[in-house]
């Protein structure tokens, strides 16, 4: 318990090396999670939030170049020796991946998969103890302990996600990274799962980094929210404030939007926002949001705005904040993002 | 065909859209293929052999194949006038190789065409039509798969007698099930795709959909699979010919190897008669395999992730 900062990300850059060239996915992000604090990361798909999450346990893809610092409990995960890293994984921080569908190994039983990290990190532990642990975990996430014997494909989406949560808590981590834990689920189930998750995290006083495109969800679960766009943080501050009165036009659009039901495949674009998020290999000059921004003006074009603080614990990256908007720019209204 | 006059225009425009999308897809594919090193290697090799096959008459006169015109020494090692030596009839091995390329490629491609047509048809039908049609065709395919390939080919070529086209037919008829199954699974997945449903909503006939929507989308996989089948077909032709079931009146790489084998070229150490034909076979088959794999990787995003 050295510092109260459990996770501290400093100027993290992630760039993918691909045959098409170098794709900057995350461009200089700072983010902090304190013990017992739930931090939400919001943004459309492709804004780099999942990439960011993957760096927490150094799980980024092989072709990703990461720079900056990811301090977990004061140690930089990115430069850690493999041995230490493995020790941090799951014991220090665990992840609830998006799409439990694929994140569970189809040919192993649930029980075995939950047991695995325990056996890896506490090799000594007796069979019986492990089993008890699994059963209690399953109960905690509201599943019948007997489920331990079944295979992933025998569970519904919600149940799978619960299993993921149980698995994430198997080694009592201090930090849980939840990467779009509920995208694949319909609203009702989403609510349940999120309830379970946040509940457990709260009662154990864990830290959690919760990633979602759904600002409303983050709004009522998190303490703080970071909004990302095109690999950068555009706004950052207390959850309810960001949800209630966002500073950045993008945040505004996000909060205005409401989640669409079902259809996991098609990720949604905030309603009222024309066009798609910029492609990482041709980012517009100046403010990357400008092309879609209702309040965009000449001032936005020259340089990319920096994150500047507005009042206590709030910051946003937009030059138009506080300016009156005369010139209304609209993206070509004809197109509708699908 | 239950397409009524009213929804024709929408129908057309939809298909035009699809066509444009497809054109773009082909361009992208080629772009990615160009970056695929082994694929390009295969292509280069293949182009070379195709060129040789096509230009055979210009490179080496066909009279070099006529035993009665051959006046070289018997099984002579490579020399200035016989770059790759001679066979047991005193013919230039090089000439035989060049003309052999024709037969081998011809058989390979034609046989593949047959197996493709059958395979694709059966695959589409069993994949697209559910119910008993689908089930029966699928069973049929599975049954044909359980027939041991080479024995069947051998038996059939004894039944049909020895001739180039018989070989082609044998290979074509025995090698389609693999394709059929592939196409089937492809069709099954595509059938579920949105625009097919749309087409259904519009009320286009099943065959119409099959032709307009499913087929064009299966084609890429068919194409990738074709190249792999050619490889197999050429291998089979060589093997059958080697076993003495080839067309004795035509020179293919397989019949050459058969000749070498029967003339005891191994013991007499006539490597120039044994090695070159084999190498050619390996190169061509390899070329087709490489291209096929490259295409698969390019066309199948799941595989593309591998690179």
């Amino acid at each position: 318990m050295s510092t109260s900062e459990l996770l501290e990300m400093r100027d993290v850059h992630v760039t993918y090396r691909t045959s098409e060239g170098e794709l900057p996915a995350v461009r200089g992000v700072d983010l902090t999670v304190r013990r017992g604090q739930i931090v939400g990361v919001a943004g459309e798909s492709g804004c780099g939030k999942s990439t960011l999450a993957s760096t927490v346990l150094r799980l980024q893809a092989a072709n990703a170049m990461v720079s900056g610092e990811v301090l977990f409990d004061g140690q930089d995960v990115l430069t850690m020796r493999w041995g230490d890293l493995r020790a941090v994984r799951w014991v220090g921080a665990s992840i609830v991946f998006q799409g439990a569908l694929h994140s569970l190994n189809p040919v192993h039983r649930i029980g075995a998969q939950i047991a695995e990290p325990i056996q890896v990190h506490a090799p000594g532990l007796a069979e019986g103890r492990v089993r008890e642990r699994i059963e209690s975990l399953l109960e905690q996430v509201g599943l019948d302990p007997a489920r331990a014997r079944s295979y992933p494909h025998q569970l519904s989406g919600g149940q799978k996600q619960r299993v993921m949560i149980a698995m994430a808590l198997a080694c009592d981590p201090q930090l849980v990274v939840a990467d779009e834990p509920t995208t694949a689920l319909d609203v009702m189930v989403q609510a349940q799962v999120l309830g379970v998750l946040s509940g457990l995290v709260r009662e154990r006083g864990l830290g959690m980094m919760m990633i979602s495109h759904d600002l409303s969800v983050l709004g009522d679960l998190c303490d703080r929210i970071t909004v990302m766009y095109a690999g950068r943080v555009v706004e950052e501050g207390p959850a309810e404030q960001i949800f209630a009165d966002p500073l950045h036009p993008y945040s505004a659009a996000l909060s205005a939007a409401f989640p669409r039901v079902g259809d996991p495949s098609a990720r949604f674009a905030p309603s009222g926002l024309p066009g798609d998020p910029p492609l990482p290999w041709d980012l517009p000059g100046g403010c990357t949001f400008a092309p879609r921004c209702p309040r965009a003006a000449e001032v936005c074009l020259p340089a990319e705005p920096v994150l500047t603080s507005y009042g206590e614990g709030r910051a946003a990256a937009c030059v138009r904040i506080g300016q009156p908007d005369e010139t209304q720019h609209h993206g070509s209204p004809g197109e509708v993002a699908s | 065909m239950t397409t009524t006059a009213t929804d024709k225009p929408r129908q057309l425009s939809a298909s035009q859209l699809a066509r444009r999308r497809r054109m773009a897809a082909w361009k992208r594919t080629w772009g990615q293929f160009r970056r695929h090193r082994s694929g390009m290697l295969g292509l280069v090799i293949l182009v070379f052999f195709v060129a040789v096959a096509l230009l055979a008459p210009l490179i080496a006169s066909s009279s070099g194949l006529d035993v009665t015109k051959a006046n070289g020494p018997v099984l002579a090692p490579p020399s200035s006038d016989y770059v790759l030596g001679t066979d047991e009839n005193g013919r230039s091995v090089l000439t035989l190789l060049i003309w052999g390329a024709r037969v081998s490629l011809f058989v390979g491609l034609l046989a593949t065409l047959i197996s493709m047509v059958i395979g694709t048809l059966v695959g589409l039908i069993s994949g697209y039509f559910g119910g008993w049609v689908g089930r029966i065709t699928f069973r049929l395919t599975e049954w044909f798969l359980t027939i041991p390939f080479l024995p069947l080919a051998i038996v059939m070529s004894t039944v049909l007698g020895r001739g180039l086209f018989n070989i082609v037919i044998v290979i074509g008829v025995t090698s389609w099930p693999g394709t059929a199954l592939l196409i089937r699974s492809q069709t099954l997945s595509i059938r579920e795709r949105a625009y097919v449903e749309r087409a259904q909503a519009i009320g286009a006939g099943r065959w119409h959909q099959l032709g307009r929507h499913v087929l064009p989308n299966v084609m890429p996989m068919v194409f990738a699979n074709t190249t792999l089948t050619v490889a197999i077909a050429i291998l089979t032709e060589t093997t059958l010919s080697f076993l003495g079931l080839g067309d004795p009146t035509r020179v293919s790489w397989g019949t050459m190897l058969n000749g070498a084998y029967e003339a005891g070229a191994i013991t007499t150490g006539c490597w120039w008669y044994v090695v070159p034909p084999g190498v050619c076979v390996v190169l061509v088959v390899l070329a087709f395999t490489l291209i096929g794999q490259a295409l698969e990787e390019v066309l199948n995003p799941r595989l593309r992730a591998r690179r």
Partner: protein
Amino acid sequence: MATFGLVLASLLPALAVGGPAQAKNKVVFKVAMLGEGVDSLNPFLGIQAPSYEMWGLTYDYLTGYSMTDMSPTPSLATKWTTSPDGKTWTFTVRKGVTWSDGKPLTAADVAYTYNRVLHGTVEQSSWISYLNGVTKITAPDATTLVMKLKKPSATLPLLPIPIVPQHVWKNVSESEIKSYAAGPANGQPPVGSGPFRLVSGTADGSTFKFEANPDYWGGRPHIDEVIFQFYKNDDSAIQAMEKGEVDFVEGITALEVKNLQGKAGITAHNGNSPGFDEIAFNTGSIDTKTGKPIGNPNPAVLDPKFRHALGYALNLPQLITKVYQGGGLPGTTIIPPAYKKYHWEPPSNEAFHFDPAKAGALLDAAGYKMGSDGLRTMPNGQPIGTLRLAARSDSQESLNTMDYFKSWLSDLGIKAEVSTYSSSQLTDVILKGNFDAFQWGWYVEPDPDSMLSYMTCGQRGNWSDSWFCNKQYDALYNQQHVQTDQAKREAEVKQMQQILYQQSPYLVTAYSSIGEAVRSDKFACFVPQPNPGGVWLEQYGVYNYLHIKPASEAQNCDSATAGGQLSGAVSATQGDSSSSVGMPVMIGGGVVVLLALVGGGFVLLRRRATVGDRE
């Protein structure tokens, strides 16, 4: 276990390899055979050359063959007499011969065997032709065998029918015999009286092991064991010999012979075998029941003049060098020169020789004039059309021969096309008469009768493949068939060959030979049959199995009995062996390669075997 063994072996190659070489004190003669294997050990079923070899070692025959010209010699029969009318033959059967199970062999066994052939159905197929015209066979006492005939027979006393023990075979019923293996059963060799005993091997197998019969009436063989190993291709066999796994290779190509002749410790040659290859014409296919023409022969080939003229278009020397790989003898008539007594050599003024001009002239004379389009026409001015030449897809020689024939024909202004058939398909085509000419071959047995019979009218639709029918020829055939005066018979046989030569249903292209190679550093005293220039192993009779010796004892080959003065054909030392065998063969213009045991050979074997004639 296999995997383990594999590892083991690769660890101890020396041991494993040493294995074969360690054939000690016992003298084992290992023969590599090629192509089709033994089809049956049952003498009433098998038809392939190797099978005859097996029976030859296992059983005895009433009469044998001389090494020089394969004329009948005493064997089980010590002597024989013919009644003045030639309708009664009396054989004296050797005394004191015993079966391998100890029981005595008597005339009764011989009578039993022959009667079985005479009255059986399955038993007939291979052997009946030898008892042609025989009505009654009896064994009045243990040493006497009496044969009664309808009419005199010229083919007797040639009786290459294996004599089987009555006390064993009487238990094999007519129906059982169809699948009676007659191989070694529960550790016992099949009961026979021959010089060797088959201790292991089954019809489809690839290894056959014989042990010498210590108390063989003809004297104990100089070798203790004979092992036949069958290989699928020449390379394996030849390698096996070079590695010392086998001592003899039978039926290799002339190329391989050439290649082996240089090698130390090995002697190779092409042995003349009494067979020939021919180009046969459709001389008029008919439905044998109704006598109506069937099939669609080109009218041209029906004309003897046309066929004869083509004889001068064949460049046989070229054929021999090119198609038969530089070895071989140009062919003339259907009775090979190996049978000196019966072979008719056409006088130089009649003999075919490569002379396109003459061929052309003969065709012109016969009315096949050159048309304006450079193609010859029928006498009636109709175009000849395209001759259909059939070749056997399983024989490269067959195909190449026809290719040459085609080009020679086109030089004469006659169009032709070559098509290939598998042997069984060709048999059908021939029987349907849907051909103009085809290439095939025959082996000819020592007595010319059966070969001659194939060209008689009566054989059409059965053994005649050229559909040849000629009254004069048939008359002569029937004469010689009952001719008891040897000299007269020879004259008649030669006259028949002359007729065939003129009528040209066959154009005999080549006299065949068999490539053989032996480890002359291990075994010696092989005597060729016919001597000189003949084959060493697959002979008529089993002379060499009885008389070959380990090379170490080669100097006293001559101590060997019959045919001793001929021995030393292959003696221990490389030098004079190649001079004594290699040279004559080479000087003799080389010998035709017989690819019988490779590919198409099967059919030759088959047709040769069908009437049991074999070299």
